[in-house]
């Protein structure tokens, strides 16, 4: 069994300040973890993925996430927010050795970037 909880449904930051989007997961198996971003009227775009290699994962557009097994967390961060980062972000967990049909999506975090 697996589940994912995005701890904030909405996050608001000022342009140029750090971004933190929180994700906790539960998995009975070795997990793979993903962050996706969704801009309005668009599909989900992969930001980064963790698949049991390095625990600090770097993604596109300056985002990174750290896998912390002891805390069952995979929080997404960015040092300095840009207006174009405003979007909805989804944390996704799956079983590394399982099937892709077993992806579990979080309910999403809406990021607002204020000028």
């Amino acid at each position, binding site marked *: 069994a697996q589940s994912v909880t995005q701890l904030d449904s909405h996050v608001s930051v000022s342009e140029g300040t750090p971004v933190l989007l929180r994700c906790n997961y539960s998995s009975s198996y070795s997990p*793979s973890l*993903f962050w*996706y971003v969704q801009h309005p*009227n*668009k*599909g*989900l*775009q*992969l930001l980064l*993925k963790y*698949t*049991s290699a390095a625990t600090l994962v770097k993604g596109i557009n300056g985002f990174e996430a750290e896998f912390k097994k002891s805390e069952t967390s995979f929080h997404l961060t960015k040092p300095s927010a840009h207006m174009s980062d405003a979007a909805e972000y*989804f944390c996704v967990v*799956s*079983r*590394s*050795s*399982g*099937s*892709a*049909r*077993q*992806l579990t*999506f*979080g*309910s*999403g975090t809406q990021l607002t970037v204020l000028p």
Partner: protein
Amino acid sequence: DAGITQSPRHKVTETGTPVTLRCHQTENHRYMYWYRQDPGHGLRLIHYSYGVKDTDKGEVSDGYSVSRSKTEDFLLTLESATSSQTSVYFCAISGTGQGNQPQHFGDGTRLSIL
């Protein structure tokens, strides 16, 4: 961007009518998926396909059927649409069916059932 085209992008129809959504890919990927996205639920898997004529049910398959007669096309059909099927539908593809591989998504179809 992965070559995924969903059609139509928007559709409004009435309860009880049949509806077919199309997903077309140019990546020659074996695996294709249909999801629905509803507020507060993230994405939920409806059906998926692991090859031509090979499909299986997902988490929320009731009221939906699928077909895949060619590698590039995956159709989702609502035989008799209901208001509870008002949603945004996304198609996704992946080269393998393994859980550690990311999926690539189309831009979605916004379906309203009145």
